[in-house]
């Protein structure tokens, strides 16, 4: 994973709650065996409507997705954060996320940060009123800031460290080789093996 410290850019206001991963990236695009190339299919069905926010030229090039509660519910497909990243987004701001989606974002280096409803509402309105408004999502300082405001966010400390350092999580776990072997040695003999 590439290290990520802060993201500055314009916002895409996706003013909907409970956006599920089937909408983020529909199933017909899950057949790729690569981690890339999903961007053009982000919100594929919703994009068919001309006035869908992602189609509006004033939001071209936005890199911060601002959206409603429970974002990313449903399927565990990591293709969802891959598609969001691939389409140029580097951060998401929402009141809450589905658990698996949030974990997937962290592994992908996509800054999924949580702010209270009222602050997300402010960002949403700002993006709608002035699509050129810039915000910075700062992982180091744990704040989302813009012209005249700075909102503090909380984030899992371990996930934060990993993203800031661009750490290879597998490498981190492999350091505990001896603990893993010790655990394995004391597993109950009746536990099933597949072969």
């Amino acid at each position, binding site marked *: 994973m590439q290290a990520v410290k802060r993201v500055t850019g314009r916002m895409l206001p996706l003013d909907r709650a409970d956006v599920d991963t089937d909408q983020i990236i529909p199933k017909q695009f899950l057949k790729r065996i690569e981690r890339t190339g999903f961007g053009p299919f982000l919100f594929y069905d919703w994009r068919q409507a001309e006035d869908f926010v992602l189609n509006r030229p004033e939001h071209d090039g936005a890199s911060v997705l601002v959206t409603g509660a429970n974002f990313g519910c449903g399927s565990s497909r990591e293709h969802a954060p891959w598609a969001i990243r691939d389409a140029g987004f580097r951060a998401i701001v929402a009141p809450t996320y*589905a658990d698996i989606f949030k974990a997937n974002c962290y592994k992908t280096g996509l800054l999924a940060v949580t702010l209270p409803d009222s602050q997300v509402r402010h960002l949403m309105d700002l993006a709608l009123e002035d699509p050129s408004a810039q915000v910075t999502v700062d992982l180091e300082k744990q704040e989302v800031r813009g012209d005249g405001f700075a909102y503090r966010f909380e984030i899992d400390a371990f996930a934060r460290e990993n993203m800031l350092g661009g750490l290879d999580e597998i490498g981190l776990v492999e350091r505990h080789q001896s603990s893993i072997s010790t*655990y394995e040695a004391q597993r*109950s003999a009746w536990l099933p093996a597949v072969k």
Partner: protein
Amino acid sequence: MPSTLGQKLWDSHIVRTAPGEPDLLYVDLHLVHEVTSPQAFEGLRLAGRHVRRPDLTLATMDHNVPTRGGARAADDLSRKQMDVLAENCRREGIPLHQIGSRRQGIVHVIGPELGLTQPGMLIVCGDSHTSTHGAFGALAFGIGTSEVELVLATQCLPQTRARDLAVTVEGDLPLGVTAKDVVLGLIGRTGISFGQGHLVEYRGSTMRGLSMEGRMTLCNMSIEWGAKAGMVSPDDTTYAYLERRPHAPRGAAWDLAVDYWRSLATDVDAVFDHEILLDATRLEPHVTWGTNPGQVAPVTGRVPEPLTDTDVRALRYMDLRPGTALADIAIDRVFIGSCTNARLEDLRAASKVIAGKHVHPKVRAMVVPGSATVKRAAEDEGLDAIFKAAGFEWRNAGCSMCLGMNPDILAPGERCASTSNRNFEGRQGAGGRTHLMSPPMAAAAAVTGHLVDVRELL
């Protein structure tokens, strides 16, 4: 200290714990399928890593397999995805239940039927419905592809401890009401995100009375209200289901295992962070009317007035008007299948409703058994004959129209009575409209051509 089932399962899998870090948990069984694994295997290969415990890893093909016309997938990309899984399994020595093999099926159906899913285990899979396995008193949850890679490489997963939530359901289920109605009724009450960050234990007399199939249906849909995992304490029903399954312990090992499994139940004095109480005796058969599983009502009800923007959009997508009686909604398709409701008991329950009747002339209905094993068992009982005589298509095992990655999809605008778990926009095919319900309810809808209270047909 008194502890819950969920925390006991958690504690017994800790490889390493350190302040300020997530716990490192050991995975007893890692299930793999063709859609969420290729990038993980590729990551391993690029880093020169190998699968640490191929003997604790099991692969199956389910998501995009065709359900008729032999083992050849309809499109090149699906074929490629299946070929890549076969190649990855061969290279890493992972057992694979290929399409066409005797044991192939939906990943959450085959684990339990092989006896690989056992109480006390930690089970993961790159699939959100992994919570199904919690029905056995296992800690089971879905993970993303990067985590699949991590588990393949290390057999471990760093996890931040989740909180405890009890759902206590008391009383006997009335006639025509199933485990599916319990969970739909629950989600209707809590909404689709209440469970976030929680290990849910389903308890109470209703749970004790449910079969393993019913418990699996309930645990399966835990993710539909956001829960990290859902589980039921193991009991004699669990042991009776498991005994003599291919991978279940035998002889003295069986006795040792059962002794341990009995110790897993939540201690009497243990405290949950939350508790939700449900009265099973007042439940009715449920159907969804919207585009998420929380948009649901008893079939005796009406399409509600929209309360939120999400409701307004859902009604537009579903082409429904507030006030319409749910039982007046005509359907085009019926899908009996998925990891939620395609086990033998589900097919039996549906077949009882349609025996001697016929699918409505305007409806196209199909049954997709959850596994090749379920299919054989159903055929041995003659269920296939009942379905076929009633005008149902009888297919091979797979995920099929639960998510429509194979050719089994709804056409735009088609309306489907489905036993699956997600009614999201386009889930069963772009523009398709899904109403979730139990197998008997779907069977009743097939016969009448509209959503209907199955109790009228019993």
